[in-house]
C-alpha cells in the first residue's frame, strides 16, 4: 500500500526541511536527558504560567519521575520514528503534511505527560486524539483509512469528553485542578457520593485511549495508518496515555475499590480477549495491534493491584513494550514497504535479503517473549513479583498473566520469526534491504530494549524507581518477595508452551477481520444518522409559523410552571389604575381587536399601529420618553415596510381551517396573558428589590449620564446591546438574502 503513491524528488531545501522533526526530537531527547539528573536527585521540576486565573486553572507543567520517563520515551522513540519516516515516506508527495501532524502529536503527547493541571492535561489529551485522526487518515483517498480515522477520533474524543467531566468533578471535590496538590481524594470522593461517577468517567477516558475492552476495536483498525504512525502512536506512546493517566491517578484514586475493580475487570478482559484475537489475524500489523491491545490490558491489570511492586512492574513492562513493539511495527512496515505484502502466511525467508531487519526482529521478539537478559524478561520477573503480592486476587491475576503471556509468544513467532525463516524467499526483491532509514531505527530500538534489560539494575534503575515513586502505592503492600522457584517456572513454562503452540499452529489461521465490536460500531453510526435524519424531518418543517408556534408554546409552559410567573407572584400588589392608563389601554386593546377582525389589510395595519401608539402612551405616562419615541418610530417604519410589501401579499382571506384558528387563538391569548402577568408581578413585587435602583444611583457617578435608559444600553449592559445589534445585523442581512434569492426564480414566470 505504501507503493501506491506517486514518488517525488525533492530539492535540497525540502530535503533539509524534512529533517526538522528528527532534529526537534533529538533536541527534546537531549533536553530531557540533561534535566534527568536534577529530577532524579532533587525531585520534580515545575514550570508554570498564569492561564485562566479566575477559574484557578494554570498552565502548570511538572517533570517528576513518571513525567521524565515518559518524556524520554516520547522524544527518544520519536527520534527513531522520525528517521524511519524518511525511509518509509521519503518520496511521498505529502511528506510535509505528515510532518506537521507528527510534530503536533509529539508536542501534545509531551504536554499530556508533563501537565500538572487536569484542564491542561485534557487539552493536550484531545490534541493527541486530533493529531492521531490526521495521521490515521493520512492516505485520505482510501475509504478504509477515512473510516478508521473517524472511528479513532470518535472513540477517543468521546472518551476525552467523559474524562473532562470526570476531571472537573475530581477538581471540584479536591478543591484544586493541580495534580500535585490534589492529594488522595478517595475519602472525599466516597463522602461526596461521587466516587462511582468519577471512576467511570475518568476510567472511560483511559479505556478509550488505551483501547481497553469494550473500546478496543479502533486500535486494530488504526493500522490503516502508515507504519511510522502505528509504531509511534499506536504502540509506543499515544495508546499508553490511558495507562499513563491510570498511573497518574493512582495516588489520588488508588484507594477506591471501584477504581481497582474497574481496572481489574477491564484489564483482564482486554488482556485475554485481545491475545486470543491476535491469533485470528493474518496481517502482520493487525497481529501486532491486537497484541498491543492485550499488553495494554496487562498494564491496566497490574496498576489495578495498586502496590509499590505493581507500579514498578507496570513501568518496567511499559518501557520494555514500547521498545520491542515499536521495533516490531517498524519491521512489519519495512516488509510492507519492500514487498507490498504483510500477510504472515505468505511472507517467508527474508532473513537472507534483509539481515539487519531480521536481527532487529529477533531481538525485539525475544524481549517480547521474555528471554533474559532483555528488558522483557526483567519486566516479566517484576510482573510475577507484583501479581504474587496481589492479595485476594492472586490466583486470578496471575492466571490471566500466564495465559496472556503464553498466547503472546505465538504472536512473537508469527510477527517476527516466520517472515524471516522457513521456506526460501517468498518474494523477489529488487534492492533488498538497502534503505538504511528503514533498517537502523528498528535495530536501534530493539538494541535499546536489550541495553535496558542488561542495565536494569544499574543506571536504568533510578529512572524506574523515580517513576514508580510518582505512581506511589495507595495500599502499601507487603514485601516484593524474592522470586521463588514457582514464579520462574511460570515464566519459563509459558515460554515453552507458547513456543510449542506456535510451532504446532504454524501458519494456520482463521481470518476474522470483521470483529463483532466493529459491526456494532457500524450499526451505531448508521442508527445515529438515521435518527438524526428522522429528527430533522420531524422538527424542521420549513414553516416559520410552525417554528414560532413551538417557541411560543414552550415559553408559555416554561413561564407558567417553571421559575417564571409563580416565583415572583408572591408579594405582588394590586393597585387602582389611573384614568390615563385606562384610556391608553383602551386604545391598544381596541386597535388589537380591530386588527383581528379587519376585512382589509390596510385597516389591519393601521389598527396595529394604534396598538403601538397605545403602548407608547404608557411609556410617556410612566417616565420613559426614550422608549415611547422608539416605539413610535418603529411603528412608523413598520407601516412603511408594510406599504412596500403590500402588493406582493395575497388577497386577505381565510388561510387556515377552524381548528388552526382556535389553536392559534389559544396560543396567542395565553402568551399575552402570561407575559402580562409576568410584567405586572415583576413591577409590583415587594419581595425583591428592583434593579433599577442600582442604575438610578450609579448612572451619573459611574457612567457620566443622566439618561438611565441610554446608560444601561451603552454602558452597564453594553455587552447585551452588542449581542442584540449583532442579531439585528444578521436579521437585516437575512431579509436581504431572502428577497434577493427569490428573484431569479420569479423572473422565469
Amino acid at each position, binding site marked *: 500500500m505504501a507503493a501506491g503513491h506517486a514518488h517525488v524528488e525533492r530539492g535540497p531545501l525540502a530535503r533539509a526541511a524534512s529533517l526538522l522533526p528528527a532534529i526537534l526530537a533529538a533536541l527534546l531527547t537531549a533536553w530531557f536527558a540533561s534535566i534527568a539528573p536534577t529530577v532524579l536527585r532533587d525531585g520534580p521540576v515545575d514550570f508554570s504560567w498564569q492561564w485562566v486565573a479566575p477559574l484557578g486553572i494554570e498552565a502548570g507543567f511538572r517533570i517528576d519521575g513518571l513525567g521524565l520517563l515518559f518524556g524520554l520515551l516520547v522524544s527518544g522513540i520519536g527520534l527513531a520514528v522520525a528517521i524511519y519516516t524518511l525511509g518509509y515516506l521519503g518520496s511521498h508527495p505529502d511528506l510535509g503534511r505528515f510532518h506537521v501532524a507528527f510534530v503536533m502529536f509529539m508536542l501534545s503527547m509531551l504536554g499530556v505527560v508533563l501537565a500538572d493541571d487536569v484542564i491542561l492535561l485534557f487539552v493536550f489529551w484531545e490534541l493527541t486524539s486530533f493529531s492521531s485522526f490526521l495521521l490515521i487518515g493520512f492516505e485520505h483517498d482510501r475509504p478504509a483509512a477515512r473510516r478508521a480515522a473517524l472511528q479513532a477520533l470518535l472513540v477517543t474524543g468521546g472518551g476525552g469528553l467523559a474524562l473532562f467531566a470526570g476531571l472537573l468533578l475530581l477538581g471540584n471535590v479536591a478543591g484544586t485542578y493541580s495534580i500535585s496538590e490534589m492529594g488522595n481524594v478517595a475519602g472525599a470522593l466516597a463522602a461526596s457520593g461521587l466516587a462511582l461517577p468519577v471512576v467511570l468517567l475518568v476510567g472511560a477516558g483511559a479505556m478509550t485511549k488505551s483501547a481497553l475492552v469494550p473500546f478496543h476495536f479502533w486500535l486494530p483498525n488504526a493500522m490503516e495508518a502508515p507504519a511510522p504512525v502505528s509504531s509511534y502512536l499506536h504502540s509506543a506512546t499515544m495508546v499508553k496515555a490511558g495507562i499513563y493517566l491510570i498511573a497518574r491517578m493512582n495516588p489520588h484514586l488508588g484507594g477506591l475499590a471501584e477504581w481497582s475493580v474497574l481496572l481489574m475487570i477491564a484489564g483482564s478482559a482486554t488482556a485475554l480477549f485481545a491475545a486470543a484475537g491476535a491469533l485470528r489475524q493474518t496481517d502482520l500489523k493487525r497481529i501486532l495491534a491486537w497484541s498491543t491491545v492485550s499488553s495494554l490490558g496487562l498494564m491496566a491489570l497490574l496498576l489495578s493491584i495498586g502496590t509499590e511492586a505493581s507500579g514498578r512492574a507496570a513501568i518496567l513492562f511499559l518501557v520494555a513494550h514500547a521498545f520491542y513493539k515499536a521495533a516490531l511495527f517498524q519491521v512489519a512496515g519495512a516488509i510492507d514497504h519492500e514487498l507490498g505484502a504483510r500477510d504472515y502466511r505468505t511472507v517467508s525467508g527474508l532473513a537472507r535479503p534483509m539481515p539487519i531487519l531480521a536481527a532487529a526482529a529477533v531481538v525485539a521478539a525475544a524481549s517480547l517473549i521474555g528471554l533474559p537478559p532483555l528488558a522483557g524478561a526483567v519486566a516479566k520477573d517484576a510482573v510475577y513479583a507484583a501479581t504474587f503480592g496481589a492479595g485476594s486476587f492472586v490466583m486470578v491475576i496471575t492466571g490471566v498473566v500466564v495465559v496472556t503471556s503464553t498466547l503472546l509468544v505465538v504472536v512473537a513467532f508469527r510477527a517476527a520469526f516466520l517472515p524471516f525463516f522457513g521456506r526460501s524467499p517468498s518474494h523477489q526483491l529488487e534492492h533488498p534491504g538497502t534503505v538504511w532509514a528503514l533498517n537502523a531505527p528498528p535495530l536501534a530500538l530493539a538494541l535499546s530494549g536489550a541495553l535496558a534489560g542488561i542495565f536494569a539494575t544499574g543506571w536504568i534503575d533510578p529512572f524506574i524507581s523515580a517513576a514508580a515513586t510518582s505512581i506511589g502505592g495507595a495500599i502499601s503492600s507487603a514485601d516484593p518477595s524474592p522470586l521463588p522457584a514457582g514464579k520462574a517456572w511460570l515464566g519459563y513454562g509459558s515460554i515453552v508452551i507458547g513456543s510449542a503452540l506456535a510451532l504446532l499452529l504454524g501458519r494456520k489461521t482463521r481470518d476474522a477481520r470483521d470483529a463483532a465490536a466493529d459491526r456494532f460500531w457500524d450499526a451505531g453510526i448508521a442508527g445515529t444518522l438515521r435518527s438524526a435524519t428522522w429528527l430533522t424531518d420531524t422538527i424542521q418543517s420549513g414553516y416559520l409559523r410552525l417554528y414560532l408556534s413551538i417557541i411560543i408554546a414552550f415559553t408559555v409552559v416554561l413561564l407558567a410552571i417553571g421559575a417564571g410567573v409563580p416565583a415572583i407572584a408572591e408579594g405582588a400588589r394590586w393597585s387602582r389604575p389611573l384614568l390615563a392608563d385606562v384610556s391608553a389601554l383602551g386604545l391598544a386593546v381596541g386597535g388589537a381587536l380591530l386588527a383581528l377582525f379587519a376585512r382589509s389589510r390596510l385597516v389591519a395595519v393601521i389598527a396595529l399601529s394604534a396598538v403601538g401608539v397605545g403602548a407608547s402612551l404608557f411609556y410617556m405616562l410612566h417616565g420613559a420618553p*426614550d422608549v415611547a419615541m422608539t416605539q413610535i418610530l418603529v411603528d412608523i417604519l413598520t407601516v412603511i*415596510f408594510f406599504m412596500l410589501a403590500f402588493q406582493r401579499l395575497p388577497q386577505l382571506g381565510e388561510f387556515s381551517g377552524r381548528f388552526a384558528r382556535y389553536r392559534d387563538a389559544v396560543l396567542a391569548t395565553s402568551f399575552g396573558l402570561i407575559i402580562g402577568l409576568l410584567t405586572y408581578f415583576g413591577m409590583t413585587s415587594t419581595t425583591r428589590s428592583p434593579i433599577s435602583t442600582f442604575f438610578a444611583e450609579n448612572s451619573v457617578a459611574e*457612567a457620566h449620564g443622566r439618561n438611565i435608559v441610554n446608560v444601561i444600553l451603552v454602558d452597564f449592559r*453594553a455587552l447585551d446591546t452588542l449581542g442584540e445589534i449583532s442579531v*439585528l*445585523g444578521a436579521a437585516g*442581512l437575512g431579509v436581504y438574502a431572502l428577497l434577493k434569492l427569490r428573484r431569479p426564480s420569479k423572473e422565469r414566470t
Partner: protein
Amino acid sequence: VTSLILTTATRLLLPILLMFSLFLLLRGHNEPGGGFTGGLVAASGFALYALARGVGAARRLVRADTRIITVAGLATALTSGIPALFTGRPFLTGLWSPAGFPGAGKVGTPLMFDVGVYLLVIGITLTILFTLAEEQQWKS
C-alpha cells in the same frame, strides 16, 4: 408616481430629520434620545426620500452600500470596547475624557458605541427598505 407636495416637503424635511437624528444621538446620554432612536429618525428621513423620489435616487443620496453601513456600525460598536482592554479593565468598560468639551460635555467610548448602534440601525432599516422597494419596482 411622484407627488409634488411630497417631493417639495422632503427637500426640507430630510435635512431637518438628519440634523434631529444627530441631535438625538449626541444628547442621548443625558436626555431622551440615543443611537437607536437617532438611527430610526435618520432612516425615516431616507425612507421619506425614497417614497418621494424613488429608491434609485435614495440609494444615490446615501452613496454607501447600506450593508456596508450595517457592518461598519457593528465594527464601530465592537471597536469601542477594545480601549478598555489596554487599561486592564474588562471589555466594553466605559472610558471617559477627563475634561469636558465645549458643547458636547464629556466624551467617552460609550458615545462611540452609540455611534455604532446609530449606524447599524440606519444600515439595517435602509437595507430592508430599499430591498423591499426594489422588489416592488421590479414587479410593476
